[in-house]
């Protein structure tokens, strides 16, 4: 149904090559996942496949869709879009035209001659939405509803191939599960060919028949989902799978790979993963390893592109079996030390909001303890973090930081505010906007050290967060997302605060980088004996890092307790629902669509 042969994407203006040598086939009715971290080239591959590359990029290589060669024929491409192949994009908040009612946007994609009055409600029903959604504007719908409208619009012209580019990454865990179940149901009912782009290997195992793993603009490994899940023939696939923390058990250390995804051109003459690979040998660096067939006994198969196992590792057959990572135990509850943070009955309602963001939340963090606050969007978890650090003023309730009342920063003396700021520091979610782009890393950190009256030893501080002191001379634009988040952590811990408030600090990072940052945070807790208030939506992260957790929904705390107890035997049905939303890699997940 789809065939891509030796696809290359280049940026002529800079002479950079972003991906090369990508070949794959998808049979009619088959579902294939392309898995990789950011920078792997997975999204560019499908954009090139559809002829929708961003401006300034061009692609070479044969693309055959539905038996027709289209890479040299823009007209054929245009004809095929919608009816033959359609794309569902990542961000439900930008995917729809904000100024057009949902129903009309769906109707725009209907084939000519179709009756919108009949077809639009039918499509909405297919994606589990009531017919009146047609009369709403996108901004009047939730993220999950928007993504369903997007799916209905993508399906309007009855495509035979559906390409979905990270369709649920921007959604809450429970919504993600519902939307994925819906996509799979629709795909099966319509017998569509399905190409899924995702960063989450376990999600890919659950959703697709076959998997293609990409890294630094090349294909690393291809195989059937079930086989790939059992045994990986490329060290990168292994590392990727290992870095995704499990939600059902705590590991002593999350296996993380040092470094980050290199640019395609930086590794043009060798295996892209060699520099980060524990199994690398000299042969890995003398040339780009070819993607080759791995038979049951190393025998090449007749049709390598169709269902066989492929790996681009020169040592694919001889890779040692990876040992299961050792399990860890959650820290024993600390003694009855005076809590560093004590929140009592905190309430906050934003002006004009229909319900409170926080409806009476109480919580405490002991010195050196990591306390997770888990919830989906709208749960009030970020408001809670902002109230603790004085970025929002609660309507009522108290926030005690190290015994001092910090409920209302505007009524505190200058000294008291200073003391509070030295006690509690914050790390924000988005590493790309958290640092001042105009200042060097060194200047930012020096300022943080000076604010606490410490000597400006930026090198030692960078060392503490595992960064090269030479980075001090750079500006944030020259750093990767993981490096920026480390700088943000360094800035927060410069004054050795006794409490670190982390608002989703790893949710914007790739899994391999997420594992590094989580390891760093766990290490910092030991070395600086900081308490941490860790805001997150990800129960797997909670399992790995936290000692206790609070589950928030709609501003109310539903359940709290030691991590092991709550996650092994949740009391509240909502906690169970959240746990079920974590992809487990089995073909039973995400389960039946509820409609």
């Amino acid at each position: 149904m789809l065939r891509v042969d030796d696809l290359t994407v280049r940026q002529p203006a800079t002479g950079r090559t972003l991906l090369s040598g990508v070949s794959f086939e998808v049979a009619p009715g088959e579902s294939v996942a392309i898995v990789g971290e950011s920078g792997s080239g997975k999204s560019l591959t499908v954009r090139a496949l559809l002829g929708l590359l961003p401006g300034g990029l061009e692609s070479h290589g044969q693309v055959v869709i539905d038996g027709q060669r289209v890479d040299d024929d823009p007209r054929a491409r245009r004809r095929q879009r919608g009816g033959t192949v359609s794309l569902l994009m990542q961000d439900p908040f930008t995917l729809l035209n904000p100024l057009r009612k949902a129903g009309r946007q769906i109707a725009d994609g209907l084939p000519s001659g179709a009756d919108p009055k009949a077809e639009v409600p039918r499509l909405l029903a297919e994606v589990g939405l009531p017919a009146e959604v047609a009369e709403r504007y996108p901004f009047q719908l939730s993220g999950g509803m928007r993504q369903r409208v997007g799916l209905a619009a993508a399906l309007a012209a009855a495509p035979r191939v559906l390409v979905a580019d990270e369709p649920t990454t921007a959604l809450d865990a429970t919504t993600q599960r519902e939307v994925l179940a819906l996509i799979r149901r629709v795909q099966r009912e319509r017998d569509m060919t399905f190409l899924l782009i995702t960063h989450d290997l376990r999600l890919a195992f659950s959703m697709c028949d076959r998997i293609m793993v990409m890294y630094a603009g090349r294909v690393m490994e291809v195989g059937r989902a079930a086989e790939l899940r059992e045994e990986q023939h490329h060290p990168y696939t292994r590392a990727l799978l290992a870095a995704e923390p499990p939600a059902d058990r705590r590991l002593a250390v999350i296996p993380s790979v040092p470094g980050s995804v290199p640019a395609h051109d930086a590794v043009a003459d060798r295996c892209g993963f060699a520099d980060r690979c524990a199994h690398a040998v000299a042969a890995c660096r003398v040339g780009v390893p070819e993607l080759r067939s791995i038979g049951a006994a190393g025998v090449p198969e007749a049709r390598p592109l169709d269902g066989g196992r492929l790996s681009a590792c020169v040592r694919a057959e001889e890779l040692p079996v990876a040992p299961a990572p050792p399990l860890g135990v959650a820290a024993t509850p600390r003694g009855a030390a005076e809590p560093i943070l004590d929140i009592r009955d905190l309430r906050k309602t934003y002006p004009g909001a229909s319900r409170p963001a926080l409806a009476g939340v109480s919580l405490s963090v002991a010195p050196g303890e990591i306390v997770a606050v888990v919830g989906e969007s709208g749960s009030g978890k970020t408001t809670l973090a902002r109230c603790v650090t004085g970025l929002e003023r609660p309507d009522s309730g108290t926030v005690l930081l190290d015994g001092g009342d910090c409920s209302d920063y505007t009524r505190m003396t200058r000294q008291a505010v200073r003391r509070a700021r030295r006690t509690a520091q914050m790390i924000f979610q988005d590493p790309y906007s958290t640092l001042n782009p105009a200042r060097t890393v060194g200047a930012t950190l020096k300022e943080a050290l000076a604010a606490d009256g410490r000597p400006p030893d930026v090198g030692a501080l960078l060392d503490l967060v595992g960064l090269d002191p030479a980075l001090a001379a750079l500006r944030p634009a020259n750093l990767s997302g993981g490096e920026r988040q480390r700088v943000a952590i360094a800035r927060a811990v410069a004054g050795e605060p006794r409490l670190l408030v982390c608002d989703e600090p790893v949710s914007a990072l790739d899994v391999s980088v997420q594992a590094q940052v989580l390891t760093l945070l766990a290490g910092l807790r030991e070395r600086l004996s900081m308490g941490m208030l860790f805001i997150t939506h990800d129960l797997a992260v909670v399992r790995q890092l936290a000692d206790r957790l609070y589950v928030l929904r709609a501003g109310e705390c539903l359940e709290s307790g030691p991590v092991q107890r709550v996650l092994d035997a949740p009391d509240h049905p909502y906690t169970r629902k959240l746990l079920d939303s974590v992809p487990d890699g089995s073909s039973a997940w995400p389960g039946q669509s509820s409609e």
Partner: protein
Amino acid sequence: MGWAGFLLRRFAGTAAVVLLLSVGVFLLLYLAPGSIQQTLLGTRPATAETIAAIQARHHLNDPVALQYLRWFGDVLRGDLGTSIRTGMPVSDMLGQRLPLTLALVGYGTLLAALAGIPLGVLGALRRGRVTDRLVVTAGVVGLSAPPFAVGLLLLVVFALWLGWFPVYGTGQGAGDQLWHLTLPAAALALGAVGLLIRFGRAALVREMEQDYVVFARARGLSGPLVLGYAMRNSLVPILTAAGLVVTGMLAGTVLVEVTFALPGLGSLLVDSVTFKDVPVVQALALLLTVLISGVNLLVDIGYSIIDPRVRLGRSVS
């Protein structure tokens, strides 16, 4: 919150702005150099009788607040005072000259929109190619050329050398008037064209890269339909620019009317300021305030027609 509430709030806001600025306009009388009596007397001899007459007529012995209220009450009744220079009621003078200035601004805006918006769209669609570079250069030239200099240049080229358009005057009858107003309107429009090219091109370039445009193309929507999506979304910045254009032109008429010797509000303002004809200056300032507030009100209403989020509020979901 629907249309009625939205319009009511916008009108109330505009009224508040005009009211606030009217205080400033009234105080112009006190800001003018020299004593108020002298200002109001103008070139008439300052005898005890004339001063007493002025004081009685303008109630200069009352508290300032009361004077303001009385003046504003007169304004609301359409009495803008008497011109010191001509002795005519100010409202009559404005009434004679307003139509010409409005026609000039309307004509100029029309020319600017007809040239600027299509050129901006053309530049955006041909981004990075020769056409685009030409369009952008033309925009920069238009933006940086001062209207009076452009006016002189147009006069020399099109009126003196080529003789296609008249040098000055307003003409008789609709067609003739249009012919007379073309050069001044073009002089006014040139800068506006540059602004509209810039805003329009930048907005459309940004919208064409948005996810919803890529998504629309990916599911096979036709080219014109996709362009329609992007155009509608770039209308908000274009409308902002159009509002700036109209208000800028109201101010720009001063220079252009003088250059082309047109009897509009602009040349009246110049004459009145020269003669320290404070009542006329006050009336003109107030009129411009109302016109500019009116334009801004129209722009606000335009936003809400284009973008439902403005009138329906964002925080529904």
